[in-house]
C-alpha cells in the first residue's frame, strides 16, 4: 500500500449500505474509497433474507424511505452487471387469528392512506395465491409492490459498479482510528495505513458503535441476531415472499402482533419464507440480543421449524440443508440512524437499518450521497437523526 493514501470520501464498511453509498457517490463523480475490515458482505448483508418488503415498514418516514427505495430498484437492476435476482413477486402477511386479521385490516387501511397498495385477503382469496397454506390461517394482507432480491449479489453488484466508476475497495482493512482536528475529520487510520480524507461515512453496521467511539460520539447500535434455515433447492413452490403477522410484532415491537408463546417472545420469533432464484427456501427468523455471537442455536432452529410448519404444513417434507445467523445493526427504536454529527464536520452516519437494510439500501445510498456532496437531502431525514435518542 502506498505511503500516503487519500480520498475525497471514505466509506467505512463493505456491507449493502456502504456499497450503496459508494455507488451513488460515484454516480455523482465523487472520489470514493470503501474500507472493509473483512470481505464485502461479510456482515449482516451476507447473512440475511432478501425481502424488499414495504408493508412491514412503520408508518411515516420509514415507509416513505422504503417506497422511494423500492422505486430505485428497477434502475439499479439495469445499471448493475451482476444479476441481483430482483423479483417483484408481491408479499403476503398471514394472520393466524381473527384478531390478527382485524389488526392487519386496520393497518392496511393506514398503509393505503399513506399511498401503499395493500389489500386484505380472505382465506379463499389467500388460497389462490398460496395454495396449501394451513387451514387455520385466517387470511392475509397482500402488497403487490413487495419484492425480493439476492442481498449478497446486490451488495457485490453495487460495490463492483462503484469500482468501475472509480471507487477503490480496500478489503481486509480495519479502521482503527479517526483523526479529528479543529472539529473536522482529517484522517482515517486503518490496519493498512492512514488515509487522508475530509469526509467519512460510517456504514460499519454492528461495528458502528466502535467507530463512533473514535470520534467520541455514542452511536447506539446493538447486534441483533437473526437465525435462518435453508432448505434444499426445489422447483417453484412459493410465488411470493411470505411472513406471519407475529413477524411484524417482534420486528416493530407491536403489541397487537406479538406471539403469545413465551419462548417465541424470548426468541423474537417471526415466520418468514421466501424461495430464492436458486430454488432454496429461506425460513426465518429470530430477533435476539446475544452480543456478537453469530452461532445458530438448537432451540431457535427447532422453534423456527415448528413455527414454519404451522403456516405451511407441506414445508415439513423438505430437507433442511443449512442454517445461518446474522447480526442486524439495531438502534434503540429499530430504525436507521442517518445524518451528521454535531461538532465533527465531515462525519456521516448511515447505519442501524436493523432488519430492513437490504430494502432501504438504495434510498440510503442516494440520501447519503446527497448529504455528503450537497449538504442537503431530497427527503427529510430529520426523523432518523442520531439526536432523536437524547
Amino acid at each position, binding site marked *: 500500500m502506498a505511503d500516503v493514501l487519500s480520498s475525497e470520501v471514505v466509506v467505512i464498511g463493505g456491507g449493502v449500505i456502504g456499497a450503496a453509498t459508494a455507488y451513488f457517490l460515484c454516480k455523482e463523480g465523487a472520489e470514493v474509497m470503501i474500507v472493509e475490515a*473483512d*470481505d*464485502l*458482505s*461479510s456482515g449482516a448483508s*451476507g447473512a440475511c433474507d432478501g425481502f424488499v418488503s414495504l408493508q412491514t415498514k412503520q408508518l411515516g418516514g420509514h415507509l416513505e424511505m422504503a417506497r422511494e427505495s423500492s422505486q430505485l430498484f428497477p434502475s439499479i437492476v439495469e445499471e448493475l452487471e451482476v444479476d441481483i435476482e430482483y423479483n417483484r413477486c408481491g408479499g403476503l402477511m398471514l394472520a393466524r387469528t381473527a384478531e390478527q386479521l382485524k389488526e392487519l385490516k386496520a393497518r392496511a387501511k393506514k398503509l393505503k392512506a399513506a399511498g401503499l397498495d395493500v389489500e386484505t385477503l380472505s382465506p379463499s382469496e389467500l388460497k389462490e395465491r398460496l395454495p396449501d397454506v394451513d387451514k387455520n390461517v385466517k387470511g392475509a394482507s397482500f402488497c403487490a409492490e413487495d419484492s425480493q432480491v439476492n442481498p*449478497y*449479489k446486490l451488495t*457485490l453488484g453495487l460495490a463492483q459498479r462503484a469500482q468501475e466508476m472509480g471507487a477503490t475497495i480496500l*478489503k*481486509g482493512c480495519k479502521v482503527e482510528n479517526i483523526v479529528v482536528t479543529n472539529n473536522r475529520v482529517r484522517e482515517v487510520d486503518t490496519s493498512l495505513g492512514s488515509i487522508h480524507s475530509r469526509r467519512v461515512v460510517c456504514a460499519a453496521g454492528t461495528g458502528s458503535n466502535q467507530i463512533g467511539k473514535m470520534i467520541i460520539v455514542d452511536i447506539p447500535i446493538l447486534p441483533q441476531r437473526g437465525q435462518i*434455515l*435453508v*432448505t*434444499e*433447492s426445489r422447483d417453484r413452490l412459493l410465488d411470493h415472499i411470505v411472513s406471519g403477522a407475529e413477524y411484524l410484532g417482534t420486528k416493530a415491537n407491536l403489541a397487537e402482533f406479538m406471539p403469545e408463546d413465551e419462548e417465541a417472545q424470548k426468541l423474537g420469533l417471526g415466520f418468514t419464507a421466501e424461495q430464492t432464484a*436458486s430454488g*432454496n427456501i429461506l*425460513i426465518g427468523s429470530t430477533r435476539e440480543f446475544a452480543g456478537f455471537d453469530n452461532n*445458530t442455536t*438448537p*432451540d431457535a*432452529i*427447532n422453534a*423456527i*421449524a*415448528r413455527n*414454519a*410448519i404451522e403456516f405451511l404444513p407441506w*414445508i*415439513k*417434507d*423438505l*430437507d*433442511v*440443508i*443449512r*442454517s*445461518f445467523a446474522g447480526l442486524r445493526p439495531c438502534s434503540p427504536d429499530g430504525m436507521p440512524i442517518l445524518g451528521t454529527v454535531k461538532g465533527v464536520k465531515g462525519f456521516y452516519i448511515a447505519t442501524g437499518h436493523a432488519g430492513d437494510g437490504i430494502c432501504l439500501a438504495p434510498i440510503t445510498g442516494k440520501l447519503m450521497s446527497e448529504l455528503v456532496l450537497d449538504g442537503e437531502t431530497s427527503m427529510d431525514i430529520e426523523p432518523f437523526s442520531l439526536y432523536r435518542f437524547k
Partner: protein
Amino acid sequence: MEVMREVWEMAAKGAVAVLVCREQIPCNPCEEACRRGAIVVGEDICTPPRYDPSRCDGCGRCVAICPGMAVVLLDRSPGGGRARVTLPYEMRDAVEAGGEAWALDAEGVPLGKGRIVRTAKASRKDAAMLVTLEVPEEWSLKVKGLRVRVMSLEAPQEAEMPSRDEGRTVCRCEEISCAEAQAYAAMGFRSLGALRRYSRIGLGYCQGRFCQTMLAGELQEATSRTPEEVGTFRVRPPVRPVKLSRLGGEDG
C-alpha cells in the same frame, strides 16, 4: 471417560460401538438405527446421544448411519497387539478384503497402513458401506477414517488435490466446473465463506463436503493466501440434510 473404559474392556471380547458425539446438533439417526436401545437421544433431538455399551452387540448399524462419522466399532478380540476398527466408507472406489488402506485420524492425517479384513454393504441405501481395518492396538482409538485409493497409498497428502482439468465438475450440487470455480476464485474474494456465498459452490445438498478442498485450493492459488487465511466453510447445523419435520419436533 467411564463409558470409554467400559467400551475398551468390552472390546476385548468382540466388536462394540465407540461413540464420540458431543455436538449439540439436531441429529438422531443413531438412535433410530440401534435396535437394542443402546443409544438414546430422546425428545430433544439436539441433545448429544446417551450411550450404554452394555446393550451393544456390535451390529454396526449406527456406524453406517451416523452423518457425523461419530461412531466406529472397536474389536480387540484378535489380540496380539492388534485391533479391528470398523468405519463408514462413502467413496465409490473398490475396497476389497485382503487389501490395504491408510487409517486416518480425525484430522485426516494418516496414522499408518491397516489391513482390510471385512467390507459390508449397507442395508439402507442412504447409509454408508462399512469397512473393517486391522491396525495396531495403540492407535485403534484414533482411527476415524480411511483412504483406499491406490495413488493415495503412495502419496496421501498429494492425492487430496484433485485434477484441475477445466471441464471437471467441482460442485456437483450446483454443477459448477473447475474452470468456473477458477474464474470465481480470481474475482478477489478473500475468504472461502465469501466465495461460497457468491458462487454457490458448497451451498448445495452435500453441504460442501465434496467441493470444499477443491475450492480452497483454487482460492489459495488465485490469492496466494495460506490455507489459514482462506479459512474453511463454517459448519452450521444440520450436518447433513434433515427433514424439517424432524427439526420441528414432529417425526416425519
